[in-house]
């Protein structure tokens, strides 16, 4: 079943420059359409500045698009009234784990915030739920009282994930969730996201510029460039066989996994 349907979304940012009469506008998204089926992950690839994060914001309901429609579980997200339940079914994890949390809140209060907003739990129940969530993302109950600065980037991203899954949502927008982590943590977080996906039947919109990370988690793929969705792929193989110039450039830019296959040929000094 289709969980999210994005139809012909167009969005532009405009800026009024001081002392300039003409309004300048920049087309961030042009005529974007795609669907995400329940329990699947769409990997959205593209170079920086392609409009990936803008698209994420539009889907989250944070930025009303100038044109187009977003249907989440059949409801128009930008309709005058939407069911309250719709909001809790969509969560987000951002790239920068530190700026996504309040430095003056403990891990426990960070994770319980969505619970307080949507569920009436007794203090004991809430504490138990937080402990379960911490365990689920690979942290321990003793971490509940710690503050963000006491965690590493990888650990803090786990807390962000715990907060995102606290309400058992249907869709999580993952905006470069592993890009600022080191490789070991990247692999571990991707593994966790994969587990959570099959455990809770989650759907993801995985926004990234990292082809390897996208391949580790996505079922379907899309490539965004200069605000346009240039291609959509039903499978990773379709992406691999694509001959679109943007995709070819991306594939050619992937770094070697071993120095033997490095692309920089000579190691000499010219003078």
């Amino acid at each position: 079943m289709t969980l999210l349907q994005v139809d012909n979304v167009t969005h532009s940012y405009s800026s009024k420059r001081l002392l300039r009469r003409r309004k300048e506008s920049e087309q961030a998204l042009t005529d974007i359409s795609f669907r995400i089926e329940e329990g699947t992950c769409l990997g959205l690839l593209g170079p920086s500045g392609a409009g990936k994060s803008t698209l994420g914001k539009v889907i989250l309901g944070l930025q009303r698009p100038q044109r187009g429609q977003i249907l989440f579980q059949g409801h128009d997200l930008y309709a005058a009234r939407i069911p309250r339940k719709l909001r809790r079914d969509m969560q987000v994890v951002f790239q920068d784990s530190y700026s996504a949390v309040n430095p003056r809140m403990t891990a426990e209060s960070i994770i319980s915030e969505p619970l307080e907003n949507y569920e009436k739990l007794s203090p004991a129940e809430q504490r138990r739920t937080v402990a379960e969530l911490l365990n689920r993302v690979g942290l321990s109950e003793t971490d509940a009282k710690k503050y963000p600065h006491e965690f590493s980037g990888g650990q803090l991203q786990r807390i962000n994930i715990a907060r995102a899954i606290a309400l058992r949502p249907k869709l999580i927008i993952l905006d470069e969730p592993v890009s600022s982590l080191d490789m070991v943590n990247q692999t571990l977080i991707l593994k966790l996201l994969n587990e959570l996906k099959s455990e809770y039947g989650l759907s993801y919109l995985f926004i990234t510029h990292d082809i390897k990370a996208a391949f580790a988690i996505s079922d379907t793929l899309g490539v965004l460039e200069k605000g346009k969705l240039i291609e959509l792929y039903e499978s990773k193989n379709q992406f691999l066989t694509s001959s679109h110039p943007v995709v070819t450039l991306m594939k050619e830019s992937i770094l070697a996994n071993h120095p033997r296959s490095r692309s920089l040929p000579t190691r000499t000094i010219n003078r």
Partner: protein
Amino acid sequence: MSTDNRSVLKVKDLHVHVNSSQGMSTLVQDINFELEKGKVLGIVGESGCGKTVTSMSILQLLDRKAMTIDGSITLKGQELNGLREQEMRKMRGKDIAFIMQNPMSAFTPVFTIGEQFVETIKSHTAFNTKQAKELAIEALLNVNLPDPAKLLAKYPFHLSGGMLQRVMIAMAACLHPAVIIADEPTTALDVHNQLLVLRHLDQIRADYGTAILLISHDLGVIAEMADDVVVMQQGRIIEAANVFELFDHPQHEYTKTLLNARLQLPF
């Protein structure tokens, strides 16, 4: 002093401690390595292992009141550790350049690229503004940035991360330093810009014989660039080897873990 003239940067028995109210704690210890002319030495390790502290201590950018740096750091035979700030300022940017991970925060937002570029050149040479500008334009052309004259009049926030990173490389390279320290130079960039930036770095290495200390957690970057690799964990060097040797026959368990953490693609 080193008898081998190929060696440009030598770090010997480097220890860095931080003095806090709870006593002294060690950030890095027993760091020894040597960097040769025209070579690339990679430093790998997960976040928090001491990679950046090591590079900051080479540049003498750590807070000397709060931290103690023991050991010897020699650049072309000259001891850097404990050098007076005035002297160190003359070397930074000229003999030893630094490329940071986040180009957005490496520039000040209130001056144009040109003003910052020209200031760097003028503070190390006898050039006048016109000459400095010409050198800046040439350096920007060398890193394939289009229309350098126009670019100089722009502010940092007018440029994308990839372009700014190339400006920073142009700035680092234009005075032909003996050593460039590149701390995660491509982590903030997308795949294509990453490859371009690495190619430019290698070009500079080949053209001027600049030695590069390349700090990265990305083994792809290391595989692409490094001649030798140092693996760090919890403030210590646990393995040092030639890049082929390291990828083919990793000795330490931790190195094996790092290598296994590489994400694979089916092609």
